[in-house]
Structure formats: C-alpha cells, structure tokens
C-alpha cells in the first residue's frame, strides 16, 4: 500500500509515487486530500478556460464561472478588457454575484452595500469614514490573470504562470484549425449550456476524452443506430483497423484526429436529424449544400483536449468542473457559426442533441462504474501502459507523441503534467487591481 500521510510533506516523493510511467494509483480518483490539493495546484495553478468572448460581447457583460471550486465572474469592462474576478465581496466574503449572466455597471454586495466595478475595483462603501484607507486598493476584489487566444478566455491564479501562448504550445495550431473552419473565424457560443453531473472524479472524463477505442464498445448502442440509418459512424469501425491518430502534447494537451477514418467527410457520419431534410433542401435550393458547408453542421472530427478543463468535441465546448472528489459537472456549450448559412446553425442544434441523448449517457455510466470499482482498496493501481511500445515521436513536432486508436499516450501525458503541477509549492495567489502596500495578496 502506498503511504501518503501528508501531501505537503515532501510532495514530490508522496505524489510522485502515485504516478508511474505506466500506472496510476486509485487515490488520484478517490482521495479527498488529493482533490483539495488539485483545486489549488491544478485548477488555479495553471491556465483554465473560463469562457468565450461571444458570451460577454458588450461592456458590463458578465457570466458566472468556476475555477476549480472557486466561484469567479468573467466580465468585460468599458475598454473591452476581460477580467476574471473572485466572486467574493472583499469585506466579509459574501458571494457577490448570484445571476448566471447579465450586464452591470457595478456589482453591489447585498450584505453591507459595498459596490465594485466590473474590474473588481472598490467604488463605494457606505460610511467610508469607518476606515482611513478604504480606497487605497486593499479592498479591491482579487482577480485571476487573464489570457485570451482568439476569443477564448483563460485564467490562472498561478504565482509564476507561463505565457498563454507557451502553455498552448503545439496544441495551438489545432485550436486555430477548429476556429478557422468557421467562416471568418467567427464563433458564437449559445447562451444556455447543458449541465450534466456524474458521480465520479473529474479525471475520469479526462481519461475518456482522448481514448479513441472506447467508442467502439461503450458507444455500441449509438453505433447500431448509425447502422440502422445506413450511416457508418466513425465510432462503429473495427478499432484495430481504424486509422485514428492520437497526439499527446506537453502540458497534458491532446488531439484525437478521426479524419483518416472518414474519407466521406464528417457529414457522411450523420443520421437524419429532426428537420435536417428540410434544412439540407433549403441549402440545396440556395446552392449552398456543398460538402464543406454540410460538414460545418457537424464536428470537425478532431477532438482537442486542453488540460485541465476544456474539451473540444464536435461543435461543443465541454468544460470539466470538479465539484468533489467523486462528483463532477460537465458543462456543454454549443458553438454557432455566425458566418455560415443559418441552416448550418439550425442543424448544429439538432446534431448537438444527438450524442448527448444516445452517447453521453453511456459514457457517464462507465464513469460511475469506474468510480465504484476504484473504491476497492486492495486493487491499488490502474494500468496506463496501453500502446506505449508502439507510440512514436512526431517527426514534425518535438515533444509530441503519436499513437493509434488504442494508445493511452494522452493519459500518460496529462498525468505527467498533473504530477508536475501537484508537486509545486505554494502555486497560487490572487491579483489586486491596484497594489496596496502591506496587503497580503
């Protein structure tokens, strides 16, 4: 049995012992102490996705989000600058913003009436004479460092974060490709996410996201639906003969490229959807039913995972939100393509629902079965070695590992980054809008 008495006592030895090159200990999925450390060292200790610019298009717009288990608010100020502020009044710690989204000139705490700008700066305090230095900046709301890549807003509380571009690294061209498939590079996130919760650790969905071979078995029911409609989804192919390419990047990011499996293009994998016949007929009438346009209605067949919380799957942004060591929320945001014909976005709505109805439930069933299986203390280790002997280095990108449909290289890669982050000391701090001498930050 692995003995981990105090994670802060020599974390490199204790945490490092839980992850080997080809195994991971079950405590990563079941130990509340490890989960608590993840909330500072991983969610906060590195860049996390918080939202898209289309969700806060105007000055004063805001959406509530989380950074691990921290409540935060993504805002946009009058200059168009994004802020990610901790959702906590700087006076007594009261949750400041309770609406999921909105537009505000300022946030006012209902407890004692303190008023803050959307950038987190304190504006007004009733009876300010209670303090001698109330407007010195020490009561500004703490915030995270914000980085933006082509409309995608990330935040971190890391003490010494790497530049966002460096963090994206070799995964960046893949993200850019997903953006650039939209006409004009324009994306718009629909206003209401699907919020599904499962009773398992957050990393289970991370393991699943870049696992190409599970689809053939876990999604057998979905595949049979495809065969019934005489479409053969990529999920239904013989896994041993499916030329899917997995790429594992530094910092835990990954790509599963399914395109080699579908010479007919993404749209060829789709069954008829509600109103799809009419919408395709409409595109045909307008002379816009070329394959490239129809392919826009479904996903690119390239799944990109940005560790630790953003999964690009189809036309969805799946955001992994840990709630407890054995409870996770997956918020699914559908992306529209404002530059495409309207029929494409209407098709996207119906396509979006399909896998959520017939595929995602089976994933969640697997997640919860895994969590139950991992409660067995005597069976300590999970093998992560699959494909290791066959993986190769990408000749075109240093540091990238290539694997086939069955490789677990993405799992090994993110666990390596997880270990690095978890072993770091004191990784996070809040930022204040204005520096204030003597104020602990």
């Amino acid at each position, binding site marked *: 049995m692995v003995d981990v008495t105090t994670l802060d006592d020599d974390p490199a030895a204790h945490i490092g012992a839980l992850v080997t090159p080809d195994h991971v200990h079950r405590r990563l999925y079941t130990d509340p102490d490890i989960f608590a450390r993840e909330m500072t060292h991983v969610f906060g200790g590195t860049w996390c996705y918080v939202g898209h610019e289309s969700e806060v298009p105007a000055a004063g717009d805001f959406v509530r989000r989380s950074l691990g288990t921290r409540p935060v608010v993504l805002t946009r100020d009058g200059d168009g600058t994004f802020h990610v502020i901790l959702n906590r009044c700087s006076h007594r710690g009261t949750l400041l913003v309770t609406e999921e989204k909105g537009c505000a000139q300022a946030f006012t705490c209902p407890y004692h009436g303190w008023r803050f700008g959307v950038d987190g700066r304190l504006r007004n305090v009733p009876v300010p004479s209670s303090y001698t230095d109330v407007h010195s900046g020490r009561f500004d709301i703490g915030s995270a460092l914000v980085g933006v890549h082509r409309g995608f807003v990330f935040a971190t509380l890391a003490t010494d974060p790497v530049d966002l571009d460096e963090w994206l690294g070799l995964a960046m061209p893949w993200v850019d490709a997903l953006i650039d498939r939209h006409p004009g590079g324009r994306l718009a996130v629909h206003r209401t996410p*699907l919020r599904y919760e499962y009773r398992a650790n957050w990393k289970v969905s991370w393991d699943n996201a870049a696992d190409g071979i599970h689809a053939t078995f876990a999604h057998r029911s979905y595949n049979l*639906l495809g065969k*019934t409609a005489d479409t053969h989804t990529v999920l239904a192919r013989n896994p041993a003969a499916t030329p899917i390419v997995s790429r594992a990047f530094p910092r835990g990011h990954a790509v599963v490229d399914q395109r080699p499996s579908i010479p007919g293009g993404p749209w060829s994998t789709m069954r008829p959807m509600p109103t799809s016949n009419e919408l395709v007929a409409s595109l045909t009438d307008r002379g816009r039913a070329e394959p490239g346009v129809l392919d826009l209605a479904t996903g690119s067949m390239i799944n990109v995972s940005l560790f630790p919380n953003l999964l690009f799957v189809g036309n969805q942004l799946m955001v992994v939100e840990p709630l407890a060591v054995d409870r996770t929320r997956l918020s699914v945001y559908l992306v529209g393509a404002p530059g495409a014909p309207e029929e494409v*976005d209407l098709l996207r709505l119906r396509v979006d629902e399909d896998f959520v109805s017939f595929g995602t439930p089976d994933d969640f069933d697997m997640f919860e079965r895994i969590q139950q299986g991992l409660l067995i203390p005597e069976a300590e280790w999970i093998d992560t070695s699959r494909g290791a002997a066959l993986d190769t280095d990408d000749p075109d990108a240093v540091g990238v590992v290539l694997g086939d449909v069955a490789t677990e290289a993405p799992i090994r890669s993110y666990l390596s980054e997880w270990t690095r982050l978890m072993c770091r000391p004191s990784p996070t701090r809040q930022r204040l809008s204005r520096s204030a001498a003597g104020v602990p930050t």
Partner: protein
Amino acid sequence: MTSSLYRTPPAEVTADLSAVRARYDRLGADVATVRGAGVSDPAVSAAVAPLVFAEARWLDGHRWQDWLAWCDDDTMVWVPLDVTHPAAGDDQSLFLDDRRRLDERVWRFGDPFAWALVPGGTVVRSVTAVEAWPCPAESGGAPDEVLVSSSVTIQYVRLGSVWTTSGHQIHRLRARRLVHKILLLPALSAGTPHLGWLM
C-alpha cells in the same frame, strides 16, 4: 425567428427554411400562450385530462408502442434547457425529437448495449393541475386542436439511486392525438444526472 447569433438576416429565405422556423416558433408560441392564458375551459380540461394521465401511465409502464400510436407522423417532443426563455431555433435544448428520433429513443430502451439503460430504471410521473384551452386561431391551430398544461413530478430510480424533479408540460393535441409535447424542467439549469431515459 432569426437566431440572435446572426448580426444580419440571411439574404434569401427558402420555403423549407421558413417551414422549419415556423415549426420551431410554434413550440415557443405555445409556451407563451399557456403562460399568458386565463382560467381554463373546464369541459375541455376534463375531456383531455385522461389522455395526459394515460400518457404518464404508458411511459412509466414502458408501453412505448401505445405511446407512439398516440403520436402523429410529425409529432415533436421538445425539452429546452432554458425554461425561462425557451427557443428551439436559437438555443440549446436537451432534445427536440421528431418522430424518427422518438422511434430511436424507444429502440434504445430495448437495446442490451445501451449501458446507461441496462438495467433499466423505474420512472413514476405524477401529473397534476391539468388545464386545457382550445388553440387560439392566431397560433395556427386547427379547430380541433387543444393546448393542455399540466404540472409533472418525475422520479427516476436506478441502481439504488433516486432522482426527482418537477416541471411543467404542455401538450398540443389534434383530434385527441399528440401534435407536440414540451417538457419544461427548471432543474436542467442547475445540473442533473444524464437524462438519457427521459421521454
């Protein structure tokens, strides 16, 4: 209805696109009509209430073919994610099924490889507060169409886990058959287990 994602309307609207928009609009309009309605018609309510009760019994009892037989070829079932401002063509839904996808949903209940449904759960739908009105002409309703509003509590039990939620449902009936059903579940905004078993 034009998606708010679009800054400018499309240059050309085909008949097919108009038909799809109209179909989606009708769903949203029925929600608005019921929310703005006055006291229901007692006779109409009494006449259709047994149908809504029977639907719950058929679905709870996995009597899928009886339920499908109550549907028309163009029946739709819609579960919007945003119950405050539901918009079938402008926002994500949990699902908006046509008859084909309803048939697929029923097929899945019998598929031994639909892991999330094996073993199957037990569902109890408690339907109350049934009110009904003749469809207003401006809503595109035929003379024999009726709008039915009811409250529903749904309890799902599977593998030792119990999940319960409440909501509203709106049925549009034509000659006592189902034109469409709208299920408004506020819990969807808070986060739920997967609802792959929901009909």
